[in-house]
């Protein structure tokens, strides 16, 4: 087997892994704070891509277009929380998850009405379609996808680890009643979590569109990939979700690149299943809380 083939698969896997990690992080933020499995996360990604494509088509420069898309999608996240999740906040986890599915279908339908069924794309951010590296070829957008994920992770680490607002969000995740008793409103923090997840989704959507294209129906498959990353890595720790995403991406790319065609999905999913069975609570241990 040639070095360039392995390298090609590794680089593709890294890129895919970063996409899945970004998706999983959006799910992690919402689940961590509100315990809601937001099955509309992929729609935020799809909307981020679609809005950026449209604004670019209207002549808005790329980065202002992304910022506007992030603002609009964040508002969508706020609407989902304020008008659907918050009124039903006392319902069971599965009911809340189903509500997000309903929202996802509504967004999908509206997107079909507004944008039609065509796939749309953006040009690579720096214009170069591909990069050649030691015999392997990667898409010119791939480094942007990796960079976006690294920035996202660094931003989340700073926000959750260094700012009081981030700590307050974590407090709601750890112990919602404890947070309430010191004046932190879980409802406000829940809204913020949905807005952050939507913003992360929009950034991811704009960044991956030159690579994967976007259309009204890409949201749910993206959500499923994000869920896989989050479940395999473990929803209780961001590091686990990132590892889960990378593992999923690398497994997919390596099995597609190195195994006979037709088997790669089965092989990738089998490997993930083995990992999941071996570590059902995620790749990394949960934070300790010793009972009295």
């Amino acid at each position: 087997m040639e070095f360039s083939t392995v390298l090609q698969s590794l680089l593709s896997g890294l890129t895919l892994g970063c996409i899945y990690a970004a998706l999983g992080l959006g799910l992690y933020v919402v689940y961590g704070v509100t315990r809601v499995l937001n099955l509309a996360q992929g729609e935020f990604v799809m909307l981020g891509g679609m809005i950026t494509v449209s604004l670019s088509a209207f002549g808005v420069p790329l980065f202002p277009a992304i910022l506007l898309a992030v603002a609009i999608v964040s508002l969508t996240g706020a609407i989902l929380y304020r008008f659907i999740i918050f009124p039903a906040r006392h319902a069971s986890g599965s009911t809340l998850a189903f509500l997000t599915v309903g929202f996802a279908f509504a967004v999908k339908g509206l997107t079909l009405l507004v944008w039609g069924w065509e796939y749309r794309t953006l040009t690579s951010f720096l214009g170069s379609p591909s990069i050649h590296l030691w015999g392997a070829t990667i898409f010119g957008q791939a480094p942007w996808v990796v960079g976006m994920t690294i920035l996202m992770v660094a931003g989340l680490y700073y926000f959750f680890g260094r700012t009081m607002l981030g700590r307050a969000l974590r407090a709601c995740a750890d112990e919602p009643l404890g947070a309430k008793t010191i004046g932190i409103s879980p409802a406000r923090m829940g809204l913020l979590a949905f807005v952050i997840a939507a913003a992360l989704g929009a950034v991811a959507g704009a960044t991956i569109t030159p690579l994967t294209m976007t259309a009204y129906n890409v949201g749910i498959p993206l959500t499923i990939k994000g869920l896989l990353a989050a479940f395999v890595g473990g929803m209780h720790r961001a590091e686990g979700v990132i590892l889960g995403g990378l593992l999923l991406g690398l497994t997919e790319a390596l099995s597609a690149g190195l195994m006979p065609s037709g088997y790669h999905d089965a092989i990738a999913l089998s490997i993930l299943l083995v990992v999941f069975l071996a570590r059902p609570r995620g790749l990394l241990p949960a934070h300790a809380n010793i009972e009295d």
Partner: protein
Amino acid sequence: MTGGNRDLVLEMRDVHASYGPFIALQGVSLGIEYSEIAALVGPHGGGKSAALKTVCGLLPTTRGDILFEGERINGLPVERLASRGIVYVDERRLIFASMSVMDNLLLGAYTRRRRAGNAVVREDLQTVFKLFPILAERQKQSAGTLSGGEKQMLTIGRAFMSSPRLLLLDCPSLRLAPILVKRVMGAIAELREHGITTILVEQNVKAVSHIADHGYFMEKGRVVARGSPDELLSHSNGSRLVS
């Protein structure tokens, strides 16, 4: 609604409350003065914790009024009451397990940090460390790895960081060794020096007899006796209370 007795930090007037079909409080009336330590004592299921929970907004009242500094507070959510100075410490010690001891304490001052300023928050942090030196030693340690006694100190310290005007402590001695009970009760007594009014729920009258100014004996959702800790102790002996 206003019109309560301004000398009282808290007044409960004929308060009724239920946990679904189970009646928890049946016409509880009491008054707590500024800077005092009041104890709610009595047997398990007597309504002590339910009374605290109605004050902090966790248990809705079905009848009656709760007045905080003369203002009616029935129905206000827990977090808004906490911002107004009513801070509840649950018997389950609801610490933020994934965060450090220091982060837990700083979060106590979350709602007032801008208003109070960093210097005041730092000063309060030093007060907590004086009350509970073990927390200073363990400030970088993950809160989830603390022992039961240390967690109790952390929850009281975190509540102090919120600058409460009324501190509601639900069974702070629960599952603690006698030496730790003494230390925790000593710290609660010291909080009075900072102008904090405290209501303390305990099953064990003896545990609070040295620090409480007065108390209420509760049974079957009613206040059946009130008086000094010694008077309550004799009442509890008469009603077969474990002591």
